[in-house]
């Protein structure tokens, strides 16, 4: 790299950086491409054919997977969409109103409330999970959809993002002008501020959606009945049941592939907005 630009070479090819990045891409795409190929192999082919030789069993694998325990896999997929979609919508709404209030109003206790909410970033899920389970049990809600949905609605990190974004995007003078025109606070929020907060809301939604979609610990602890499992816990139980039975491997591999498809598709279509960034300045793009 240094040598390439040292002398007067005007257009060095950038072989080193390009080569390093290509190697990185090969590393990340390797297991994904393997699972795509492996899902096409029948039981016999899985162990006998060359690693990247496509097989003939994709349709029967899919049929087996969807027939497994009366189609419980579909239910896992549906549950995941429900948890991640519902949770992310609610989390975005809560974070947006909270961040907006923290950014635009001066009121007693603002610093304390902000510190409390954002301090949640530092709280490890592990301290919460066990007592959350016990408290839900007390309330008779352990094992229900609510037990997985409710704890994931408040996202401290999202509140933090919403606040820095609102502070940067909404000029106080604009709100002032609205008030002089006689607009109420709720109307100001809905009509004036919300449109300006949309980019932040997209980021927060995506961030929460992925976080809930990928979460394993909370549903693993909360749920007992596999009809309420999300994909992550479902796949785990499939593996736990099938680890010693190579006959189930096709099912697990196909299930893994299908669990990737929705999120990877979402990722690829939305990747422009995908700035789940940790440093404030970058949120604005």
């Amino acid at each position, binding site marked *: 790299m240094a040598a390439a630009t040292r002398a007067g070479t005007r257009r060095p090819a950038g072989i080193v*950086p390009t080569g390093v*990045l290509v190697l990185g891409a090969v590393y990340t795409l390797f297991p994904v491409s393997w699972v795509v190929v492996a899902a096409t192999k029948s039981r016999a082919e899985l162990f006998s054919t060359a690693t990247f030789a496509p097989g003939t069993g994709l349709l029967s694998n899919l049929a087996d997977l969807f027939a497994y325990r009366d189609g419980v896999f579909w239910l896992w997929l549906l549950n995941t969409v429900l948890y991640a979609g519902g949770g992310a919508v609610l989390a975005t709404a809560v974070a947006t109103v909270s961040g907006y209030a923290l950014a635009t109003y001066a009121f007693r206790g603002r610093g304390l409330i902000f510190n409390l909410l954002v301090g949640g970033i530092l709280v490890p899920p592990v301290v919460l999970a066990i*007592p959350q389970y016990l408290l839900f049990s007390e309330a008779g809600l352990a094992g229900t959809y609510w037990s997985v949905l409710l704890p994931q609605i408040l996202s401290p990190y999202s509140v933090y993002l919403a606040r820095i974004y609102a502070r940067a995007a909404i000029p106080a003078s604009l709100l002032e002008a609205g008030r002089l025109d006689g607009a109420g606070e709720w109307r100001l929020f809905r009509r004036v501020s919300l449109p300006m907060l949309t980019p932040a809301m997209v980021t927060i939604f995506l961030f929460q959606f992925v976080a809930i979609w990928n979460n394993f610990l909370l549903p693993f602890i909360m749920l007992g009945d596999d009809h309420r499992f999300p994909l992550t816990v479902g796949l785990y139980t499939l593996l736990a049941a099938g680890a010693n039975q190579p006959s189930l491997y096709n099912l*697990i*591999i196909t299930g893994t592939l299908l669990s*990737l498809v929705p999120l990877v598709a979402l990722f*690829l279509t939305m990747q422009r907005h995908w700035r789940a960034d940790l440093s*404030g300045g970058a949120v604005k793009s």
Partner: protein
Amino acid sequence: MTTRPLTTRPVTTRTRKGAPRAGAVPYLFLAPAMVLFTLFMALPIGYTGYLSLRRTKVSGLGLGAGARTEVFAGLGNYAAAIGDGELWAGWLRVLGYGALVLALMLGLALVFALMLDAAHVRLARITRISIYLPYAVPGVAATLMWGFLYLPGLSPFGDHPFLGAGLVTFSMANVAVWGGTGFNMLVLYTNLRAVPREYYEAARIDGAGELAIALRIKIPILVPAIVLTTVFSVVATIQVFTEPTTLRPLTNTISSTWSPLMKVYRDAFVTGDLHSAAATSMVIAGISLVVSLGFLRIVKNHAFGED
């Protein structure tokens, strides 16, 4: 938490003092968050603390109603958690695993970010998206894919004992590196893109090569972001659970208490000793908190002060 707000910065010069006397309005806006915070964070934390200070007292043979009662245990559970050899072994395993993951993941993330930012790089967009892609892959799915790639009979890498006692830590670290490099790369890269290009022009005019620019300008600029990503990674590593739990069915080299968090799970839900599980999770939380707060002190003005 510290008593100062995280974003201590005299930013309020912009007409903020003209903020209205809004009365109850901000509290109404914040009500949902505060209710959720109370129910799902404050209450569970308090309850964990309470549980960690209690123990079950068994009288007689432990049979019949009233034979098991809960009594105050002082710091007994904490003493037990700190003196527990199995837990120590777990901490040591996670320490070795974490050192591997951090060095490889953040090292690769830094290299990739610098390469993306280098002059005349080709295929930058497609490689960036590819390397970031695992962010969209659930930890369970990532572990399953690699788990099968490690399995003798299936592995395209030959029949090495990837899941044997000697290699399992490396194999597991590889899953975490695979899953986390892209995210960290993007954080570092975004920071680099915010640097005015003139800096580099000036350095080039002074005769600096690309390597010198990377080492002398870019890396120093990235230090706060590197500290930030390091701490988030350390905290995540301390609490590692999904990967070893998912890999367990494929090998007998991962015990049910491989990581401290797995031991918490086992104590709470398999052996049913909630009190020692609570104490252990408080210890894990304490360590996470010390690390996080330590980092906040270091980078407060850089990372969190930047509005």
